[in-house]
Every structure is written in C-alpha cells, then in structure tokens.
C-alpha cells in the first residue's frame, strides 16, 4: 500500500496491476446474441442470469435458482457439496456414504484435496471410500440395520476418532433415520458419530450441501475442545480445501509472517483441529460461498470475528496479509509481514514480468465455483490479462453483488429445505476478541469485518456475467469472444478444447497446483503460458486444408505499410475461415 501511493509506473494501474491491452467487446450485443435463440420462458429465466456488468451498481442476478430440466449444467448435487467439498477433506475421520454404490464412488478422491500423512497418524483415511452399498432389500426393508452394521464394522477396522454418515437421494425417500442410527452408534461405541441429511435432490446445486455441512460441523465438532493453541496470532482459514496443495502454500506464507493457523476448513485438517477452531482470534474467509455460515455461527456463539480475504493472486495475497496484520495491530507482526511481502515479491517479480510479456493482451473467461471465478481474475490481472466474461456455477446473489443484498434475497422452496440452525452466544465461552474501542478504531481506519463485496464490483464495466452457464452460451461465448483461455471444470473442458481454446480446470486444477500465494501465483502464470502459447493450437488444421499463407503469397516488401494492412485483412479472413462449416449452429433452444 505504502509503496503504491506514488504514481504508478507507466502501463500499471493505481493498484499495481499491469493495464490489460485487450479491449472489452460490446457485451450488450453479445448478450442479445446469446439469448435470442431461447424460447420465451427459458429466455426470461436466462435473462436474469446473463448480465452485462456495472461495477458501480451491480444489477440483480437470478443466481441460485434451479436449473431447468433437460438443460445440461455443470452443477452437482447437495451430497457432493456436503461430503465431497466441505467435510470430505477431514483426513482422520471415517466417511460413510449411506446409499447405493455410485454416489460414494464418484466422490472418492476426485477433488484432488490433498493430505499429508502425519507422524502420529500413519493412515490417511481419505484414501478410503466407504458406502453401505444399498441393495434392493435395503431399499424395500430399510437400510438402518445395514448402516448400523457398517458403522460398527468400520469402527472395528480403523478405530477412528469420529465417523460421519452421509445420506444420498434414496435414503431420504425410504425414510431411514440416519441420525437415530448415529446417536445409537455413538452411545454404543463411545466415539463421535453424526449424520448429514444431504440427499442430492434437496438443493439446486452443491451449495445446499455446503450449508448442511457447515451446520453439522458446527453442531457436532466445533467447540469440543477449549484448549487453545499456544502460539500468538491464531487464525482459522475458512473455505480453503487444499486442492493441489493450496492450503500448504498459504500456511507457509502465514508461518513466515508469524501468523499461526489453528485450523484450515477443511483442507488437510484433522478432527482435533476442528474441535478447537473456536479458540482462534480471527476467522479469515476465502471461499465465501461454501463457508460463510460457519464464520457467522462462530462469531455469534464464540465471538470470533471474520474478515474476507483472498490468497489467489500476488497482489491479493499481499493485501490479505496486510489486512490480517492490521487486525492484530501489532507493530512487530506488521513489520514482519512487510518484510515477507518484500521478499516474496522480489522473488516473484522477474517471473511475473517475464510472463506478463508473454500474456498481456490476452483475454480470459471463467465459470467455476462459488469463489474461484472471482478470485482467479486477480491472477489474470497480475499479468495484464483481461477477463471478458465470468460467472459462478453455484453461488448466490451475495457472491455476485455483495453481502449488502443479503436482506433482499428471496427464499424459495429449495432454500427453505435447508435447516437454519439457531445459534446464541455461549454463556461461558463467548469472548469478544476486541474491545469496543479497538473495534471503533479499526473501523475508523477503514477496516471492515464481514465485508464481502462480491465479484461484480471488482469487474470491469461491460464484462459479461453468466450464472450457471449453459452449453449453448459457452459455445456462443467461444464464437463471439474467442477468449484465449477459459477456466471451467472437467465437464466443459473437452468441449472447449475441441473448439481450439485451452481450458484450465479450476475445480481440480487438472494435474497441477498449488496456485495460491506467491509461489502458487508463479505456478499459475507459467501454466497459463504453457496452455495459451502451446504450438498445438496451430497444428489443428492440416497443411492441405490451410488457406495459402498470406505472408508467403505476398513475397518481398512484406513489411511495407500498404502490405501490412493487406496482410492484416487477409489474416483476419483466414482466421474467420473455418473448414467444412457444418450445420447452422443457431437452432438451439432451451
């Protein structure tokens, strides 16, 4: 901050980002083009989910609404959000999926949420994927006995500290009382056992599962151990799942600064850490969508305040570290943080500069998650790339428009399904972390708690915002915008790449990562360079189908101003030329 108050160097903006040289296309026209083929009813719905951005007054977006049957979506189910995303990464409890075999199989280590073996715990339970594997007789006669037997057996095999049970769709219908089975097993076996009613059909996406998971973790795990860690400056990092080792990267930087992580929810986390995470001094929320409930509940019950931060992107990492420093208001810590930032940036700058040269002027679009489509824009900004379109897969309005719209969000039938648990201040354990005076002073200094402003205010005017993007819209986007890279998930990846655009998976990172903090940022820039500048995209059209190379055809004098203009025109034509254009692509409807 301090070093940025001076005039920025040429080509950089006031925040220190290189100014992108690509220009934002006319998104109003693009939007109309994308929407025009939908029949009226579908169009009315999609119009609310496909907007052109205005950062000053973000328009209202129709997020978190059910996908229309027959429209192929990237979204997953409630179970996936609960078992797969939020609780799955806890590595020393056993996870048992109560249901038929598939739901559990598909959530078996597919997210690349990493965990290291611990010295005191040789087994990493993440490699086990347990299910009651319900058979017809269980559906007909009920699966409670089978579940009870599975829990007993699982306990006998592994003697875990806790067991979590997840219900899938059929379980909700046949009416198994999973919670009663868990209570009984808990009494019988003497370990913590709890269930989640996270049947897939309950919500419109995995988002409902996040909420259910937050509630369960809070009810059954948080607050069981009041012994705080001994270290100073204790924080929890919330909404960080250690995909590709992201959490480790953040840990490393925080540790260098002298900030102690009590718990990361829930990347590479142990049961023990969760039970005492309420003893931390501050909650730092990364993925607002998946975990804001937890932050709120911990604040109400135990007095742990929360702030929003982001460790994706170098500038953002520095900003977040400074924010944490400011909260603790400790001179030594603040100085240390500045030292670390200076060190890390000195190492990163040459890479960033090198990659900026290769990437500035390129454009990107991203459709993923409930936070990454926002956070990753900063990594692109770091190297001068322009985000031309972005949207979430399962976020809510507040993730787009900011928390200020929370009171105005309408509750629909799907959201009503999800339990809101009543939380009160704990009579003994509620400890305000700051005095009212300290809070006032912080606020006066521009420090905001619970301050998520959403994606839209940080995006350029006229960027396209597309919630729960459909196939048709993705296809149109590629046709109209020709972004240099698209970030999405595995379900779109190969469609996008077949169309000649590189696609980076931002759920599982393909094989890569980490991408957080400084080292992670360098990884990501290089990955972008690899993907965008690979030669393979130029090899797609065989020589016998290529139009004559204009530069060869024109021979010498090629760089004369007139020829240059001609060359650009011809090259433009060549670019627009597509071999064997197949059936007209304008018949899609929803």
């Amino acid at each position, binding site marked *: 901050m301090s070093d940025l108050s001076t005039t920025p160097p040429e080509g950089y903006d006031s925040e220190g980002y290189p100014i992108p040289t690509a220009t934002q296309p006319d998104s109003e026209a693009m939007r109309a083009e994308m929407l025009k083929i939908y029949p009226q009813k579908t169009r009315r719905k999609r119009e609310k989910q496909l907007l052109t951005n205005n950062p000053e007054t973000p328009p209202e977006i129709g997020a978190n609404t059910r*996908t229309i*049957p*027959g*429209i192929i979506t990237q*979204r*997953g*189910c409630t179970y996936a959000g609960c078992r797969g995303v939020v609780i799955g990464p806890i590595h020393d409890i056993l996870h*048992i999926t109560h249901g*038929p*075999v*598939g*739901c*559990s*199989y*598909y*959530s078996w280590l*597919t997210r690349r949420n990493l965990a290291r073996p611990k010295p005191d715990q040789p087994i990493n339970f993440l*490699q*086990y*994927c*347990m299910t009651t*594997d*319900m*058979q*017809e*007789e269980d*559906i007909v006669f*009920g*699966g409670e*006995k*089978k579940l009870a*037997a*599975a829990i*007993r*057996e*699982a306990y*006998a*095999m592994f003697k875990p500290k806790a067991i979590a049970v997840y219900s899938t*769709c*059929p379980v909700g219908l046949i009416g198994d009382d999973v919670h009663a089975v868990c209570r009984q097993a808990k009494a019988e076996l003497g370990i913590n056992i709890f269930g989640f009613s996270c049947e*897939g*059909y309950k919500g419109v996406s995995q988002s409902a599962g996040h909420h259910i998971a937050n509630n369960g973790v809070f009810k059954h795990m948080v607050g069981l151990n009041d012994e705080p860690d001994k270290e100073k400056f204790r924080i929890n990092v919330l909404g960080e799942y250690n995909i590709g080792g992201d959490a480790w990267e953040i840990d490393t930087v925080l540790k260098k600064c002298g900030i102690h992580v009590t718990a990361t929810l829930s990347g590479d986390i142990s049961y023990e850490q969760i039970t005492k995470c309420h003893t931390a001094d501050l909650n730092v929320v990364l993925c607002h969508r998946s975990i804001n409930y937890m932050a709120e509940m911990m604040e109400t019950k135990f007095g742990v305040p929360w702030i929003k931060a982001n460790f994706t992107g170098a500038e953002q990492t520095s900003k977040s570290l400074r924010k944490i420093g400011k909260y603790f208001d400790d001179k030594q810590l603040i100085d240390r943080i500045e030292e670390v930032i200076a060190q890390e940036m000195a190492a990163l700058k040459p890479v960033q500069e090198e990659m900026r040269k290769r990437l500035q002027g390129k454009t990107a679009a991203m459709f993923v998650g409930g936070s990454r489509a926002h956070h990753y824009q900063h990594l692109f900004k770091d190297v001068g790339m322009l985000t031309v379109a972005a949207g979430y897969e399962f976020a809510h309005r507040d993730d787009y428009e900011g928390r200020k719209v929370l009171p105005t969000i309408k509750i629909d039938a*799907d959201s009503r*399904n999800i339990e809101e648990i009543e939380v009160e201040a704990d009579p003994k354990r509620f400890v305000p972390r700051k005095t009212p005076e300290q809070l006032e002073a912080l606020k006066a200094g521009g420090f905001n708690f619970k301050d998520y402003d959403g994606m839209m205010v940080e995006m350029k005017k006229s960027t396209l915002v597309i919630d729960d993007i459909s196939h*048709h819209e993705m296809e149109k986007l590629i046709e109209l915008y020709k972004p240099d890279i698209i970030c999405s*998930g595995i*379900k779109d990846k*190969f*469609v996008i*790449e*077949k*169309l000649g655009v590189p696609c980076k998976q931002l759920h599982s990172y393909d094989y890569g990562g980490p991408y957080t903090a400084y080292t992670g940022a360098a990884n990501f820039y290089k990955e972008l360079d690899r993907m965008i500048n690979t030669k393979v995209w130029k090899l797609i059209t065989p020589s016998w189908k290529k139009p004559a190379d204009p530069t060869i055809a024109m021979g010498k004098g090629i760089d004369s101003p007139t020829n240059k203009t001609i060359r650009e025109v011809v090259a433009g034509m060549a670019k627009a030329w*597509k071999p*064997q254009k*197949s059936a007209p*692509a304008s*018949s*899609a*409807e*929803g």
Partner: protein
Amino acid sequence: MSCSSCKPQVGPEEEGKEEFPGPTTNACKLCTPLGACLAYKGIAGTIPFLHGSQGCATYIRRYLISHFREPMDIAASNFAEHSAVFGGREVLHTGIENVSRQYKPELIGIATTCLSETIGENMPQLLHEYKNRTDVSHDAALVHVSTPSFKGTHVDGYHKAVRSIVESLAEAGPENVAGPVALMPGFVSAEDLRHLRELFAAYELPLTMVPDYSETMDGGSWAAYERIPVGGTTVEAVKALGSARAAIECGHILATTSKTAGAHLADKFSVPLHRIGLPIGLRETDRLCEVMGSIASRETPAAVEAARGRLIDAMVDGHKYVFNQRAVVYGDEDMVIGLTSFLCEIGVTPVLCASGGRSRHFAAELRKLVPELPESTIIREGADFSTIGTEAEALNPDLLIGNSKGYSLARRLKIPLIRCGFPIHDRMGGHRILHVGYRGALALYDTIVNAILERKQDTSSIGYAYL
C-alpha cells in the same frame, strides 16, 4: 444381474453377516446408469438422459470424462424435493422437450437413477403420456431402461441399455435378406471397438455394432461446434437388425442371463446367436475368429493369421520373463475372465481373480473356461478393494492387473500395475488401450513383459542395461 432375485429371501441383517459384512470399502464397481449412458453414446445422434437428480448425471459425466477425456453430455430431469415426493412426470416431460429442442437428437436414451427407481416411477406410462402430448416435439426416438444401482453394476446397466436399444428399435426386415452381423461387444475400450471393426472388415463381414462409441468417445478436434459428437451406430442400422444374418454377443457372464440384446434378436427374429467371451487372449480370440469364419463361410484371412502368428512368436520370445509370475486380476467379471484366460496362456499364475460384480456365476465360469487355473487361485465376486487388498497382501503377487483404482494397492505392495479396463484416470489414453483380438493380446503381452523387465532393472543393484 441376478443379485437378489435368484436366491432365497433373507433379511438384510442376515445377508450382511453371511456374505457382505460391513461397508463396501473402495468399491470395485460403478453404478448402473453409468453403463447405460456409455451404451447410449454408441448410437449416433443420441443424448443420454437420466430420470432423477442432476447430481447423478454430473457425477457420471465427470467419471466417464476423466477416463475418455472427451465431452460427455448427459441430461437430467433434475428432481427437486417436490418431484421426489409427488413423482417426476412434469420434470421428465420438460426435460425431454428441452433436450429435443436444444440438441435435435435422433434418440434420447433414458435411464433411471436410484431416486426414480425408489419412488417406483412407471416409465413406460410416463413416456406413453409424453408421446400422446400434442404440445411437444416428437422428433427423437425415446428408449428407456431401468437401471437402479441397488441392483447390479455399471456393466449390468450397459448390457441392459444395449438390450433396450435393440428391443425398442429392431424391426423385422424383408425376407431372405442377410443383413449385417449384429455384434454386442461388451464393455470395452474405444480402441477395442475400432479393432473389432477391422477384424470384421478382414472377414468382409458387414457389421452393426451395438454400441459403437469408438468415435463419439474418442474423436478428433472440431472445426465447428458439434452439439452431439459425430459417430456411433445409426438408428437406421439398429432398426435393420431384425434381418441380421447372425448375432454375436461377447461375455460369458452376460451369456448366463437370458434377457440380452442377442437373445431378443434370436427369439423375435430368429437371428442365429453366438455367445462367446470378450475376445481377450489367444483362445477367446480364436473363438471369435471361428465364429466370424463360420458366418462368413471363409478361411481365416491371411492378415488375421499373421497377427496370430506374431502373438505366438512373442509368447515364445518372452516366455522366460513371464513364466511363473504371480498376478492379481480385478475388474468387471467378463474382463477378468478374459484376462485370466490370457494370463494362464502366457504362463502367468493368477493368484487372485476378483470383481465387484455379483453375478454368482463368476467362479464357475472361470473354472469352466480356464481349466488350467490352479485350484489354489482365490476367486472373489462382490469384492471391494479392501478385500482385494487384504488378500493380495497375503499372496505376495508380482503384478496387479486392472483399472486405476488398484494404484494405491500397487504402491503399497511396490509392484507394477498393468492398467486395463475401466476406469483409467491416472494415465493418458485409457480408452485407447487395446485388449481384444490377437493384436490386443500382443499389446497386453508387451506391456506385461516390459513392466516385469522394468521392475527387474529398477530393483537390481547392478542395473542391467541389456536384457
């Protein structure tokens, strides 16, 4: 497939104790509709459609995609709580209508999920109602199959969908027309399907494969957006199967069930049916060649003979390396039978043959088809990787043969994993592994021998460079 129906009814607890105690830990099977969706992808212009929650479609897509590295669209009727309670008629109809308009498919391949099966959706009735509606599009043929995952595995879903496709589409043709051979190849790789086509071409036998996803699930890059990737057996071709000159169905376990696509063609249209195994290894490929030869009434083509010759020659050359190696084989039942038969041919001893399938015929078929299988070989059906792991640890094998899910076991035992079957998501080209035919056997053979040599080199203190 006959999991619960062909044995006396027992209470769940009793059964749990007797046979499958405790949870399934690291399953060695996937869920039923996944197989159905893959089968549907082998019919040209088809969109698979799951009647149930969107989550199953998403999960199944991501799994098939991680193996094939190709686009894989599956639509869903996207149940909400309301439809789960009151039935999914509305969402099914809206879904079909939307898919028809968006994708203009020739066929919509519908499969049920556990959810719609649990509430007992009457699919024929619901589809009948759709067909009677006047306000919707009727361009696509509708095929449906019942695929609850609490009954059977992905392989069962696959075969059931194949049966449904043939049953709903095949029509009686003109008399005295010898149409193409109907081949039901089983759950094999895209490369396998291509090779089978080549083999039939060598015999100059016209062929209709149900399904054929060799292009839809392993295609080139696109010049323009392909709403439904090109390739697959056409609906027309399946329709014409009523006059197929013969039908061949691959899979010994499949042959233990009566309701198959081949059986339907035989029963309804009197198409002569040949039931063989997956043509993996020498004997099982010989069997396929015999059948092709008899249908075509011709000698084995020279190229095929030559391929067989090369395989035998390689087996002679490499015998010393593979002889008496001990292998653990796991995966789909029919795949394991084929691989086991082949391993015995080349002198490798399968010490454990395991599958997550529960046909109740696995052991008997293995013993019957591979008589040289040592008596001590352990055969497990309904197995998960927890069982396979425990058994394998005691057996001290040299090799693991099966899909990617055995990787952590191979790592634990410090032995090579020869990747075969489905799913393979930790290597490139899992869908291009060739298992079938003499050429497939040869490719497998080279892979196995080389894995053994590599291990020998890696673990040697001297480091032989010349083997």
